[in-house]
């Protein structure tokens, strides 16, 4: 068990390391000079040189990478160019907002999608199920920025129930959460339906039914019990992905999270800020992934961590 956790932690850290290294290389490969965007288009050559000197951009790339690695292990990725503050601090301040939004969205998704998927799987190929099925297809076909603007216009401008942007009151959480959840509900409920249908067709369920087990038991205890792991994995993976910033939705609703921060960091070519965002979000995502794996034995007693089954 401990070995397993250590092994997974090692793999996770390696992934994070590769991610930030990839970003480092990509940034250096790209055309464009951060000194120009920092000092402005009218800066003289001397000024540009001074900026490069200040941020260590005039050193050889390998030396820059070495410095970057040292920074990585001390947890200090340098000053953000545009915020004039330690980049890690800037990102860390935004993180709670993204976490709140992601948590709210995944909770809403789970609460709606699981019962919806079960409902669909219990009456496959009926007219009503077909209707809901088509609705879920529509749900996964709507671009989230468009849904967001539509909800914003409908419920913040025309009928002003909720605030239009930011996170001043809890009401501000409602519209972004719904926007994210529409897509996620469509995806997850279809998956629940698929898993449950497969389980309903399995021989063990026929045996249980012939022994007179009640229908609700069959659904929730038997079929759901065996669908729990894939569904839980899907929910967890989605949650981990959201921690990387729900970029589009955050931009639409001016949500002060990591997603809107990264867009700004990219526009201004704020290298330390980009690196810090990638590092923190990747760390969090890997951590969540590990927690999901650790939860498997709770959902399915047959799973023994570290044994061949989960390797």
């Amino acid at each position: 068990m401990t070995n397993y956790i250590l092994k997974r932690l090692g793999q996770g850290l390696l992934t994070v390391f590769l991610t930030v290294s990839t970003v480092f290389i990509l940034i250096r490969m790209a055309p464009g000079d951060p000194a120009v965007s920092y000092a402005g288009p009218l800066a003289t050559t001397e000024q540009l040189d001074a900026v490069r000197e200040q941020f260590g951009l005039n050193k050889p790339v390998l030396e820059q990478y070495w410095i970057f690695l040292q920074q990585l292990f001390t947890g200090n990725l340098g000053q953000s160019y545009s915020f004039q503050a330690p980049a890690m601090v800037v990102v860390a301040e935004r993180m709670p907002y993204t976490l709140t939004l992601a948590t709210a969205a995944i909770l809403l998704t789970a609460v709606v999608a699981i019962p919806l998927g079960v409902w669909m799987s219990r009456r496959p190929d009926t007219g009503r199920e077909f209707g809901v099925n088509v609705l879920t297809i529509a749900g996964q076909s709507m671009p989230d920025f468009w849904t967001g603007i539509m909800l914003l216009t409908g419920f913040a401008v025309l009928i002003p129930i909720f605030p239009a942007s930011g996170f001043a009151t809890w009401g501000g959480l409602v519209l972004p959460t719904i926007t994210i959840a529409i897509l996620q509900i469509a995806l997850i409920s279809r998956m629940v339906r698929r898993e449950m249908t497969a389980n309903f067709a399995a021989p063990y369920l026929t045996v249980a039914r012939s022994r007179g087990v009640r229908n609700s038991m069959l659904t929730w205890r038997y079929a759901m019990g065996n669908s729990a792991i894939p569904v839980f994995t899907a929910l967890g993976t989605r949650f981990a992905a959201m921690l990387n910033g729900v970029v589009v939705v955050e931009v639409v609703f001016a949500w002060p999270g990591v997603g809107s921060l990264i867009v700004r960091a990219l526009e201004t070519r704020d290298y330390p800020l980009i690196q810090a965002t990638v590092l923190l979000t990747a760390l969090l995502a890997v951590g969540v992934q590990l927690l999901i794996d650790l939860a498997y034995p709770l959902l399915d007693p047959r799973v023994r961590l570290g044994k061949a089954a989960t390797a």
Partner: protein
Amino acid sequence: MSLDTATPAGPGSPAGQPARQPSPSAVTKADIAKAGATRRRNAAKWKLIVGTICTLLVMIPIILAQELPLPDANFQDLSARRLPPLTDGHLFGTDQLGRDLLSRVLHGGQVSLTIGVLAVLVSGAIGIILGAAAGYFGGWVDTVVSRVLEAQMSLPLLMMLLLVVALFGPSIPVITFVIAIAQWPEVARLTRSMVLVEREKPYVSAARILGLHRVQILIQHIIPNVIKQATLVVLLLLAQAVLLESALSFLGAGPQRPFATWGRIISDGQDYITTSWWMVTLPGLVIVLMVVGVNLLGDGLRDRPRRKKKGA
């Protein structure tokens, strides 16, 4: 991938083959029409029909955009700003610079669709080749491909895409490449799992005994057996590619020339949403119609009962 055979048919009514000649079976035509398998087939048929209609409804005007009697997509007429739909021959109205919205949507759609189709072709090719190689050869090839797949799944996807586009410029090749890179894992994983099944089948051993080279077996015998299902996934990826491209261009990382694409048109109209609803609503509806169509088509093709080969 589940072949759900359990149907909610009543006890004692096997919902299977319709009886050809008069038989003592108690299964009537009405029973067959109500059976789960029949309803499933009908649902797939409707999805195919509606999906085709929706897709064509968007695709045909886009393809014919140059032929249609429309003003140029970039032609500005400041005296005709923000006209509502159906005025002065502007079916979708005009935007804040007096450009014809329908023309913008169609011409932008050409760019979006081109990117989508190219991206899907590239990601399909990469995915099928790498996935098949990983599944068939196993060993270190499989290890490398699977590791790369895993690593990419845990990367912050949209963030990386934005990063690459922001750094290398929003040109059509860059965006196409970026979307293709984002999408190949799905094809590769599916192809790999199917090839794993195929390679254990007797015909592969037979081919090997006949002295065929391993690469030849893979290309001539295994890939033709999995390509059909792999292309189905590719169709669903087209829907995703269109959505991804529109998200990128909404965030300002989309192509600007020759025409602004759908996401950009919507973000342009965002500031005028309270006074000119059509500038956001209509382009969005076009995207939804198109993507719903492609998704329905993919779903319907997947659920369609497999026809037996003629003469088999």
